[in-house]
């Protein structure tokens, strides 16, 4: 084969090898690339005390209780819920039924002690009047849990 063809094959081979290696590495460390775990991920997996991690899901409806400077709520993925307490300022978009990611550590009593609360919003973009009309006509789709 010509030199040009040989060059082409080498480059392609190199790229395929690189792609395969990257895929393998990514699957291997995929667990730590996850930005957050869901409450279901935690079920049955006892976490070492004091280990810092992030949990994501939806703020369970009617679960937000403000108590002086701190607030408690439940993060749910519609299968399992995790109670959380937080003593800081909640972001603008934090509300019940909305996506949320909490970072902190697991407390001794099964409650998650959040050091940081971030709001996660979905990929839908629409004007307020369209949203209102959808809600009124009963066609409003709730956000998914992740």
């Amino acid at each position, binding site marked *: 084969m010509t030199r040009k063809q040989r060059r082409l094959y080498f480059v392609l081979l190199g790229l395929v090898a690189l792609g395969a290696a990257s895929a393998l590495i990514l699957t291997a460390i995929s667990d730590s690339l996850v930005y957050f*775990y869901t409450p279901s991920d935690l079920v049955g997996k006892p976490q070492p005390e004091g280990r810092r991690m992030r949990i*994501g899901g939806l703020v369970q409806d009617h679960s937000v209780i403000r108590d002086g400077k701190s607030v408690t709520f439940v993060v749910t993925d519609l299968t399992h819920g995790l109670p959380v307490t937080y003593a800081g300022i909640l972001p603008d978009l934090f509300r019940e039924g909305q996506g949320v990611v909490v970072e902190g550590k697991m407390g001794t009593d099964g409650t998650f002690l959040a050091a940081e609360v971030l709001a996660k919003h979905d990929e839908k*973009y629409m004007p307020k009047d369209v949203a*209102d009309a959808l809600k009124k006509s009963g066609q409003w789709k709730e956000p998914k849990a992740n």
Partner: protein
Amino acid sequence: MHRYANPARFLRLAKAILPYSSGLAVLLLGSGLWFALVGSPADYQQGDSMRIMYVHVPSAWMGMVCYVAMAVLSAMALIWKHPLADLLARATAPVGAAFTLLCLITGSLWGKPMWGTWWVWDARLTSMLILLFLYLGYMALIDAFDDPERGSKAGAILALVGAVNIPVIKFSVDWWNTLHQPASVVKMGGPAIDPSMLLPLLLMAFGFKAYWVTVLLLRGRAEIAAQKIRVLRLAQVHASSRGE
């Protein structure tokens, strides 16, 4: 393809296209800006902060498109030794870097009010930052050698190796749990974005594309001229050393 290997042909093409691409860019970006800031409604949950999307998303798209172009051109340079491919890859790199930087900065300005933080190390943001590093690495590498051809070759290899990052960026929000939301426009089931907001987004996106073509043509001309200058200077040195 080898028809366009001739720089003179590229220069003629550039001359013909430039007025149209720049005119189109001005038109699309101008109307896009108006629709983005004035002629479209605020979002039901993000309010007016969502308008940042109209510069953030086109920047992200162009940062990725530019890199793919750079990778394809690098392959053409390495495999087919296409003489123009190297020059155009060099030309487009700084523009892609600028788009990517813009994407990160505008994203940060959008993330702070909406998420509650300027930055997170999730898969989407991290892979975009890696893209910026790849651009900067490429730009450093191509000028790191005395012989520009060796620099181009090294840069081409880096560009190709880094290309695996592009699907990672695109699918990061699907493959891993991220804070960044999933795709709104290019997804199964059609766009999840209201038409009144899709319009400014598309105007800005195509405006950014027309802008990129314009700048690429200009920088391509500059790279060709630089190449010719190098050759002429080399010839002059040889001529004078021969005592002409």
